[in-house]
Each structure stands twice: as C-alpha cells, then as structure tokens.
C-alpha cells in the first residue's frame, strides 16, 4: 500500500497499475513514478504492481462481481458509484472480430473524478440565451467530461432550469452532487439507444452525451431535428481535424452543432467558444 502526500495527490489525474510493470501517476506535468516510500522517483526505481494486486483492485472496483460489469469491461472500463471510472485492459478472447470476454485484466487506470460546478459557466450562459447545439472538444485528458458534468449541473439547476437528458453510456456524467438537478439519465447502454430513448420518452430540452463517434450520429440528428439542443464531446485538437471524421462533419453540416468549445489544459487553461 502506497500513501501519497496530499500535495502530490491533488495533482493526479490518473493512477495506473500494470501487472509486473511500473505504477505511474498521470499529472499535467507528465507521467510520474513513485518508489516504495511514496516518493517521486525515476522509472527504473518505480514500484511495480503484482498480478494479484491488480486482481484485488478489480475485485474492489467490481465489488467482487465481474459479471455485473461484463459489457463495460469488454468496452475497457468499469464505472464507479461516484461518477468516475476505471479503464481496464488485458488479454481478450475474440470471436468474429468482437471481444467475447476479457480473460485477464492486467492494467488498470484509476481516473480521479473531478466535479467543478463552474467549469462550463460561461458557455452555459450562452446556451441559455440561445439553445444551439454545442460540440466540446480537446485532446484526450483535456477535461471534456468535467466540462459536460458542469454543463449538466448548471443547465438543470436554478430558476430557469432546463430539462436535461444525459446519455451516460460510461456512467460518468452524473455524480452524487447532482441530486438536486432535473436530469433524466439513461446509462449503461449505447449512446445511440440512450439518445433515442431520451428523445422519445423524456422530452428533454437539452441532451448531453460524451465522446461521440461513428455510432449515434443518426440518433443525434433525429433528436436535433426534434428541437432538442445537443451538447456532446469528441476528441480532437482543432476543428479541421474533427471535420475529417465524416459522421461528426455531417452533424456539423446538418446544423446539429452550431457552436464549438475548445478546451485547454496545461500552459493555456480554459475554454474558447467558437461559432461553426
């Protein structure tokens, strides 16, 4: 068991355990390694996790019920009750090009969940003025999920609270801090299905979903055509890069997204609102 100092713990974005390989900490300053005395050290002196420690970690994350997270594990994550998630990978069993099961998990990435209520305040004010679809983008680890959580929280609370539907495929957008919000959430199923359910049954004013990709573009377009404002995120460093993905480009061309928010972390921190 390694005990981290509070100063170091506050900087950590991820804790990565790998069986037989060094334990690393992801921070804004880069990947750090620690020794058995919990001091930052060189990679060669870093402490390693054993396979039984990784297995115990998985047992704790799944509350000793791997079957309950079978589909999530196949997709590479385990959702946690506080809205955060752990990434997992290892040896898989494939049939017909699809993962049938994960027979051994030997890497775990524990993502530190952050709820920053004001992260999306400026953008939410603009969304409230005019309900236009907004695409949030940044490279991985840029704070998109934190931003979407904040947007869900800010838009669904207060005197002018909106009905917010959250398509929470990875069960990380709604946190216990949002208990007072008027949020309807569909979790644990593919985004496309969640967006369809929300649009058809919950009449939301805003739908929020994380990491859009090839799947779900049709459902997002249908929801936008029904008058729902879509706020979604995707990976990308700039709009040109994002436009190279046909599904997202088609959503932008069809007017699902009229605004974009570029998130920055590191040297330049903050968000930049762009009109598409």
């Amino acid at each position, binding site marked *: 068991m390694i005990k981290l100092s509070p100063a170091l713990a506050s900087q950590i974005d991820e804790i990565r355990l790998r069986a037989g390989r060094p334990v690393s900490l992801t921070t804004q300053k880069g990947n750090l390694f620690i020794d058995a005395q919990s001091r930052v050290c060189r990679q060669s002196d870093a402490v390693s996790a054993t396979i039984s420690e990784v297995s115990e970690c998985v*047992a704790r994350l*799944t*509350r000793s*019920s*791997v*079957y*309950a997270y*079978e589909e999530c594990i196949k997709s590479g994550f385990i959702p946690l009750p506080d809205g955060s998630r752990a990434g997992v990978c290892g040896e898989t069993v494939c049939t017909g090009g699809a993962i049938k099961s994960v027979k051994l998990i030997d890497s775990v990435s524990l993502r530190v969940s952050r709820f920053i209520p004001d992260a999306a305040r400026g953008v939410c004010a603009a969304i409230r003025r005019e309900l236009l679809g907004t695409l949030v983008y940044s490279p991985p680890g840029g704070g998109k999920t934190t931003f979407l959580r904040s947007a869900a929280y800010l838009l669904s609370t207060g005197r002018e609270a909106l009905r917010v539907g959250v398509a929470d495929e990875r069960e990380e957008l709604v946190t216990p801090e949002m208990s007072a919000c008027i949020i309807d959430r569909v979790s644990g199923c593919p985004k496309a299905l969640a967006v369809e359910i929300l649009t058809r049954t919950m009449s939301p004013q805003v739908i929020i979903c994380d990491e859009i990709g090839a799947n779900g573009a049709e459902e997002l377009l249908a929801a936008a055509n029904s008058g729902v404002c879509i706020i979604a995120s995707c990976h990308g460093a700039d709009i040109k890069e994002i436009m190279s993905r046909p599904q997202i480009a088609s959503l932008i061309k069809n007017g699902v997204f009229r605004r974009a928010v570029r998130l920055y972390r590191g040297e330049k921190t903050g968000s930049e609102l762009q009109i598409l």
Partner: protein
Amino acid sequence: MKLFACAVIVVSGWLLGGLTAENKKESFVQARGILRLLETLRAEIDYARADLFSVFARFSDKYLEECGFMGALNSGAVSAEKAWNAACDTLSPAVPMLAEIRSLGGTLGMSDAQTQTELISKLALSLGPRVEESGRELRAKASNYRVLGALMGCMAAIVIY
C-alpha cells in the same frame, strides 16, 4: 387425579419427542435457506446483473441469520470468496452437500453472467432434491420421535397407575 397425571405424562412424552425432532431441524432449515439464497442470486444476476454484496445485503432468512451465515456474508469482506467461506463455517456440519456449497465460493463473482448463473443453477439443482429428501426424513423422524415419546409416556403412566 391419577388418570389426569397419566394423561399429562403421555402428552409430555409426545411433546418431548417433538422437541427432540426440532433439534434435528437445524441442518434442514439452513440448507433450505441456502437453496433460497442460490435461487435469489441466480435470478438477480440473470435479470439485473446485481452485484453479489447487494444481493447478500437484501436477502433475508431467519435461520441463516440465526446461525451467523448472513452476518459473515455482510461483514464487509472485499472478496466474495472470503465472505462465502467464512459464512460456510457457520453452517451446521450436517447440512447436505456442504463441501459443494463451500466450493461455490471459489467461483463467485469471477466469471461472466452466463457461467455464473450456470454454476449457481447447477448447485441449486443438485441441492434441491437433497433438501426435499432431508425435509421428508425430518418429518418422518419427527413423527417417529413423537410416537416414541408418547409410547414411553404410556409405559410410564401404566407403571405409575
């Protein structure tokens, strides 16, 4: 007065026989509780993919609680296997198929839903008839003990009378 005393002795013998049979009930009621728990687990895993500890926390059985089985399951252990093994230690050694029940612990929570429900169903299917048989034996034993108690009461009454 003598007649009344004789009647009391016969009835007491019958009741004493019943009480002796009651003591033999422990293993049967525990096995029946385990069977119910297995059926609940199978259904909860199959339908809701509920995690083991939440099923253990919601499950209620008077006899499994009395013997400490449920307490051991809900003691806050990290591993379901450890909790299950500790819980099995609280069961009466006369519970049918105790070794098989104990060995289920090694597979709990470690496989996919289909394999997990199959393992639980397999144990439940083998345990079910044994519990039924044990119930039948218990009822027969209870009846025999009562008759024996009553007969002894009769003999004592004859001697006294």
